[in-house]
């Protein structure tokens, strides 16, 4: 069972994530957008969206540090377990609260503002459910696990993080995850579920973060005979007969 939950299922999700993005990019560039609803409503979005997104950037940054940097490295750098813990919890709490508050505002907005709600697809709703559960579980792990220490102290850097690195190195060790508290297990499982959904939702906009804007020239020139132009793309030469 553990083998399925913490090895097979995550790899399936990861595969879907990667292949799904390639597929979506190749076949649905037109649908690759944030599908902004700012035109409909601005007052709530103006507070909620930056809170959520900047909070989320912090959360992602925290996860990268927490999951990918081995404890041995910080030990070697002379950062004590206690100091690391304080910084991580403080930063995580700040980013987490921003994210949760932002998300609450955005979900409230999406449900109550008529035009925004009617522009919400079923896929959006599924995605929101997964994203919400992941964030709430993550917040629970931070608050209950690290601050209130319900169910005893758990150093994820010796458990979950090691499992995650072993997972990325294709030498997964399910036992490490099986020993983790239920909150961490659920958080990881739902997160992998979200990864599997990711390429089929509006979340793809994460991968079009326009960092290139900082370096490109202001005005873009292009030639007309670009293949992307026009609604007629040249047909395949090998079209099936019949069918």
């Amino acid at each position: 069972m553990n083998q399925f939950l913490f090895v097979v299922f995550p790899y399936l999700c990861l595969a879907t994530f990667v292949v799904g993005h390639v597929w979506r990019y190749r076949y649905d560039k037109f649908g690759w957008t944030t599908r902004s609803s700012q035109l409909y409503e601005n007052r709530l979005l103006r507070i909620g969206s930056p809170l959520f997104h900047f909070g989320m950037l912090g959360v992602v940054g925290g996860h990268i540090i927490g999951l990918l940097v081995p404890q041995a490295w910080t030990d070697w750098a002379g950062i004590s377990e206690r100091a690391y813990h304080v910084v991580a919890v403080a930063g995580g709490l700040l980013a987490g609260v921003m994210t949760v508050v932002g998300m609450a505002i955005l979900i409230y907005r999406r449900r109550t503002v008529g035009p925004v709600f009617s522009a919400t697809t079923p896929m959006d709703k599924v995605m929101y459910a997964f994203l919400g559960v992941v964030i709430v579980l993550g917040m629970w792990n931070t608050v209950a696990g690290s601050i209130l220490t319900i169910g005893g102290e758990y150093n994820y850097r010796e458990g979950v993080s090691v499992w995650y690195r072993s997972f990325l190195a294709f030498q997964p060790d399910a036992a490490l995850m099986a020993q983790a508290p239920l909150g961490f297990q659920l958080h990881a499982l739902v997160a992998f579920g979200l990864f599997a959904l990711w390429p089929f939702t509006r979340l793809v906009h994460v991968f079009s973060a326009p960092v290139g804007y900082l370096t490109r020239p202001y005005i873009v020139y292009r030639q007309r005979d670009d293949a992307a132009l026009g609604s007629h793309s040249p047909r395949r030469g090998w079209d099936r007969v019949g069918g």
Partner: protein
Amino acid sequence: MRVMAQMAMVMNLDKCIGCHTCSVTCKQAWTNRSGTEYVWFNNVETRPGLGYPRTYENQEKWKGGWELTKRGRMKLKAGGRLKNLMTIFSNPILPSIGEYYEPWTYDYSTLTDAPAQEHTPVARPKSLISGQNMKIEWSANWDDDLGGATETAHRDPMLAKIADKVKFEFEQTFMFYLPRICEHCLNPSCAASCPSGAIYKREEDGIVLVDQDKCRGWRKCVSGCPYKKVYFNHRTGKAEKCTFCFPRIEVGLPTVCAETCVGRLRYIGLVLYDADKVLEAASTTDDTGLYEAQREVFLDPFDPEVVRAAEQAGIARDWIDAAQRSPIHALINTYKVALPLHPEYRTMPMVWYIPPLSPVVDVVAETGEDAEDTGNLFAAIDALRIPVEYLAELFTAGDVAPVDAVLKRLAAMRSYMRDINLGRDPDASIPAAVGMSEEEMYDMYRLLAIAKYDERYVIPPAHAEQAHSLEELGTECAVSEYGGGQHDLFGEGSGTPTPIAVENFQMLQDRQTSDSLTGPSSTKGRVNLLNWDGKGSPPGLFPPTGPDS
């Protein structure tokens, strides 16, 4: 010198009767889809008025276009690159749908489905955004013909600049129409604002387009454009803008708005310009110097050196010929009667306007004086500061002198041509008073008053060797696929795209360049339903049936 060609337009505002035909045909061609209900690539504003979207010209509020930093460098008015990215999650200067208008339809079915009742059933307006009943409070043309001007016109940002002189009293009112499309700027701030780099300027003809596959819906172009001519399609989540009808331009046809213009006030042609000088011209310190600076960027297509450089830059010979015959070049540089719209936004717009003389003529005519006499008109142009200053706010960043000069040329043409039309001796002193020769004045009159289709639209088609990729020609056989084009789409997006120019190019050219009002000589394919008595089928409606049926 780096020569580039730019497809440009000039509109003669004196001829605009505000019929909105351009807007309607444009909408039918391009934006009659859900998600673009409020999108008008072409709109006609009554000025003074708020414009569309409301007060879009107030750049202190909307922060579109460019500005100069203290060190004289160009910077987006909305902020630099980093600030642009930091505000990406919620664009603080994006106009809400309320600044445009909430599109609506009517609940027509109640009219036909209502049971017999005492009162006439009413079709209520339903919002196309929320689907709910709504109260209609604004639309794309709410202040058309100065409707409600006493309530709203004082909020016109251009009027505000000369407000101390204007009391909006009815007897002092002047008005004219301002048709607007995308300016296809030489220095487009929408493209510069786009984080994804999806907006690009075509190298061949300078048309500014949004790559729908690269656009990610960040909405920065909407706020970056000072003319607010990029719109957000709220269904697809992508930006859309006027395309200068590029599929038509590529085969030598004018844009839909120009083709259908009742007043024939639009001119389309090429302008050659020096791409190396654009930035320098756009950075001119003084706002009022921008009009002249932009004119300096344009190159004289008759100058052999320019022709040589153009050929080296890969511009085909027929394009250079077209640039020499271009009505745009003539109106901007030879006769100097066309002015750019809001040069102070520093985007180097490429849709220019001949300011209207009519507000001045109307006032003179109302006084009972001869409104076609140069002396009267010149005096009126000098005396009527309000319309002239208003025009200057629109076209020359507030500098009255160029507007004065243009209006005087138009006035001089009016009285000079009257003498000729009445069979009197032409008065050579009239053209001389505005620095023109008699011949120049007559040529200008020809271009402004009686220019035929192929003089108003000098559009060199894109080159035949590139024909395969041209939108309109569609060299791929559409019939090969029975049952429509895109199988995976249903509803309005399905089927093979209908070409924008369904009329055959040759047919259209014949029709437009013939001087007679009659239709094509052959009536094959035409059906006359007027003399059909309702029995059987009218001749010609169905193809002839075979002998055995």
